[in-house]
């Protein structure tokens, strides 16, 4: 996992803070899939870390953002994180099978639409694995889920994306 050097003094801006804020914003965006909400989550997390004197390491900031996200949706009585513990855990999955090639759909927003249709936990797992390059074991540690559940989430997210893009007639 990436680690950013903590500040030497309590209120010194940590080294690499710009990069950390960008990564953290993108993680918040992967959860909320909404720019304004991602900024709010990031701000809430920064306030919380300052108030508690917590660490500015990426894993800690991500965990704080995640807790804020869960808190606010619990308060609004929305259920976004559903337990997968009762489902069969994914066996070792060959993710190269799921990294298919297709038309570049980024330009016309179809990928954004498809990602919006995923559950927050599926987008989160996908983001951490594909964008941040975390291993399933690291994601399991960060999100307090079994590794097998993370593998299931990743498999399911990719399969759903493929189905959604097929429905949009982007993929054959």
């Amino acid at each position, binding site marked *: 996992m990436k680690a950013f050097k903590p500040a030497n003094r309590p209120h010194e801006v*940590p080294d690499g803070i710009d990069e950390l804020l960008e990564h953290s914003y*993108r993680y918040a965006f*992967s959860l909320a899939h909404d720019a304004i909400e991602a900024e709010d989550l990031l*701000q809430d997390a920064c*306030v919380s870390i*300052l108030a508690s004197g917590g660490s500015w390491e990426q894993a800690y900031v991500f965990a704080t953002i995640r807790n804020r996200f869960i808190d606010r949706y619990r*308060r609004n009585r929305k259920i976004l994180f559903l337990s997968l513990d009762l489902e069969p855990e994914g066996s070792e999955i060959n993710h190269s099978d799921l*990294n298919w090639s297709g038309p570049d759909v980024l330009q016309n927003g179809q*990928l954004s639409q498809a*990602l919006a249709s995923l559950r927050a936990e599926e987008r989160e797992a996908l983001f951490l694995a594909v964008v941040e390059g975390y291993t399933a074991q690291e994601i399991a540690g960060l999100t307090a889920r079994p590794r097998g559940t993370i593998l299931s989430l990743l498999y399911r997210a990719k399969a759903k994306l493929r189905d959604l893009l097929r429905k949009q007639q982007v993929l054959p």
Partner: protein
Amino acid sequence: MNTKKIDDQIRDYYASQGPAPHTVARLKQMIRSGAQVRPRRRTWLGMAAALAIVLTTLIWTAAHRVESPQHVAATIARQAALAHNEKQELEFRVASCAELQRQMKSLDFTLIEPAMMKEMNMRIVGARYATLAGEMAAQILYVDSHGVPCTLFEARPADQLARVVAGEHQVDGVRVSVWKEKGLVMVLARPMA
């Protein structure tokens, strides 16, 4: 048509997302002045969550259609009422408006103390950064002599806020006043008498 691996497309998609420069500047400023941040009161967390959702809805709506001035006023009144009821964490605790002006350095306007607050003998408690109809705003907590809280939003009258009309609204047991003063939009939410 160009083809690309889906993983590369996902990476490109998230690489194209980023916080607004003013947000990064504001957060860095907040981290620098972190000493001023006091321990949170849990009750303020809910308001942060609710306000974010209301703001998201508000900004999405604003981005997709041009609202009438009355509709904009009604929408920000609902937002202010919800924020007032939910309570959100304060980023700054101050004893005067002048102190708050010094601390909220990332605002793109200068805070003022509305005449109404002086007339009502309201005491300032603290504030946090917020947005109002997509514009950066200060969300300021006041209490009256009996300790009853009021929530005041101040923002520059840009875009939709430029067309907002003054008026009184009643939302979920909250009385919301909208007006302009010294070039700023003011939205005050307080309990109905």
